[in-house]
């Protein structure tokens, strides 16, 4: 597991702004104990195309009023939520997590119920003094470890990057809002596509 983590940290270290997002320089240790180098340039991971889109949209509208600011924040989240990129992140998360959670809950409940209703079956010997109950109990431990590994791998490979791109999109949209520039519909959708293009590049 540690090795796994270490490798994960190594592959994303050079350009991974998770380590730098809101506050910088916490000198985080990765799984292997080596200090991670904080990334200096925060906006860098925003794909260039997406940034360009946002700025291009920025010129069109003119300065917003204070009321628009309040409305704007909510609009940004609604828009991001509807964007294809976000839907994809959410779909990937749920497609893994819901079946996995259901599976281990059923497996655990079956184990508890079997222990209380079918002690005879559980007492059947397997090898030496080891019986079915022992194997099932150790199986619970094993399945927990395996699922933990599978989930962190899935999240690292299929979700982290896109989620981070979206985070920067929101950040950028909010920033351009605050600077008093307007925003056009479709921006996020485009920047979302750009984010996924970024992933494909990777």
């Amino acid at each position, binding site marked *: 597991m540690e090795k796994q983590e270490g490798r994960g940290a190594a592959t994303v270290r050079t350009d991974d702004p998770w380590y730098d997002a809101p506050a910088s320089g*916490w000198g985080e240790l990765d799984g292997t104990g080596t200090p991670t180098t904080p990334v200096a340039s925060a906006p860098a991971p925003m794909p260039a195309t997406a940034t360009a889109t946002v700025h291009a949209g920025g010129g069109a509208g003119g300065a917003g009023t204070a009321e628009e600011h309040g409305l704007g924040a909510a609009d940004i989240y609604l828009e991001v939520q509807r964007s294809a990129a976000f839907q994809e992140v959410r779909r990937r998360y749920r497609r893994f997590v819901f079946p*996995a959670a259901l599976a281990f809950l059923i497996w655990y409940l079956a184990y508890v119920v079997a*222990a209380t209703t079918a*002690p005879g079956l559980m007492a059947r010997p397997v090898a030496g003094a080891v019986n079915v109950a022992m194997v099932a109990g150790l199986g619970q*431990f094993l399945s*927990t470890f395996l699922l933990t590994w599978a989930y962190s791998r899935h999240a690292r490979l299929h979700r982290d990057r896109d989620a981070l791109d979206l985070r920067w999109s929101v950040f950028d949209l909010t920033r351009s809002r605050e600077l008093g520039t307007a925003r056009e519909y479709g921006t996020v959708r485009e920047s979302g596509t750009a984010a996924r293009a970024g992933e494909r590049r990777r």
Partner: protein
Amino acid sequence: MSGDHQTLALLLFSAFVAVTLGITTWVSRDRHGSAEEFYTGGRLFSPMENGFAIAGDYMSAASFLGISGLIALFGYDGMLYSVGFLVAWLVVLLLVAELVRNCGRFTLADVVATRMRERPVRIAAGTSSVAVSVLYLVAQMVGAGSLVSLLLGGTSEAARAWTVIGVGALMVVYVTLGGMRATTWIQIVKAVLLMAGTVALTVLVLLRFHGDFNALLTTAAERSGHGQGFLSPGLAYGGGWTARFDFISLGLALVLGTAGLPHILSRFYTVPTARAARRSVVWSIGLIGSFYLMTIVLGLGAAAVVGTDEVRASSAAGNTAVPLLALDLGGGAGSTGGTVLFAVVAAIAFATILAVVAGITLASSASVAHDLYASLKKPRPEFPAGSPADFPATLDTEARGEVAVARFAAAGIGAVAIALGLLARDLNVAFLVGLAFAVAASANLPVLLYSLFWRNFTTRGAVWSVYGGLVPAVLLVVFSPVVSGSPEALFPGVDFHVFPLQNPGLVSIPLGFLAGWIGTVLGRERADEAKHAESEVRSLTGAGAV
């Protein structure tokens, strides 16, 4: 136990206290007194550090002494606890940790309040968090009291009372002076000590049996007096159907309660990102899983080396199985090795209680100050009129006031826990822990999962799901055989029990979920789409997370 054990154990424990007090002073030397600093230690911990701290928070003395003791007494049925305690972490890892880190700020109520009307949900979630914390806290304090009498032989009532008071006073010092940063470091030190001690004992047990696990199993079964029945289910929970349902109820509460424990939830805020939160849970699952695997070996080892009857003779609940095992593995009573090992185990057990108690106190003081006090005092200020530049200053002053309240709250909760710990000193510790888990699973988990995953969830649903889990859980316990109608009950003289199970989880957990659903569909209120969008985007991407 002889005087040597006591002196050495007390010396080692004093060393632990001295080291942790030193750390508390050291880490709090340049603090700014901000709320961020007090509740989350500035969110600067690494996943590994936080993983150890989570493991430290979770592996209470009930796990260390209690589970291996249960295994020594009841064999396989004790092992079911270890499984439940570990599997619970999958709920935390898959459904809770990352989303909570992204969406919340200091407490459980923060997550819910992202998309609901703040006041009602804060008061509800704050109340249930404090209830869970106080139950859990009392369990630990009672444990501390009985531990001292078991381990140090000072069975006098006064010795137990002073232990409870001493532990309570120390934890208040840690929390008020050091906040989350000191508390976390105490957990880390304790987790390392606990793991080291457990590994050493496990290796010694396996060496005794020349690495032959099968020999360990057969010897344990032989010396338990139950034969093969010791290794299969049914020894503890094989009685009537009530006992079986009780066990299923407990199993459900264990697996669902962990994700609702306030002091575990607040741990995810001490790391900078959701990814770090996930990696800390992976660390803690590794640590907790290997720890529970080792407690199985220790429990079986105690049965095989010490013998079940001797364990039961020393403590009916099995709590002294591991210390007795240590004494035996070190060379028996009177030998230097035995004395040292016994003292080490005793000191680790004390350190464990102290650390866990500090963690819970901090979490509950956060709920009191950040949720209850802040909501009851006045509605949260909207953006003030006037120049936006004044706004951060207002926020800052308010946050500082809140931290002062949190410090007082920690002292107050410490006093309440000491008082209740003294009153409840004859209650069964395992029952109190099971109850805390049941309340957490019934009142905290439904509202948390609904707010994170259900689009149409409303404020009314949130409030209903908290109270709809909390009230039945507490009422069912009041009307259960734990409180009246049985010889071991709180009030053995009277009998008003109508609910047959000791653990309310089987009924109250579904009720909590049901109440949230009913409250949502019955209300005319529509879910706020924009706020739901905000909380969903924030939870999955980390946008706008602090």
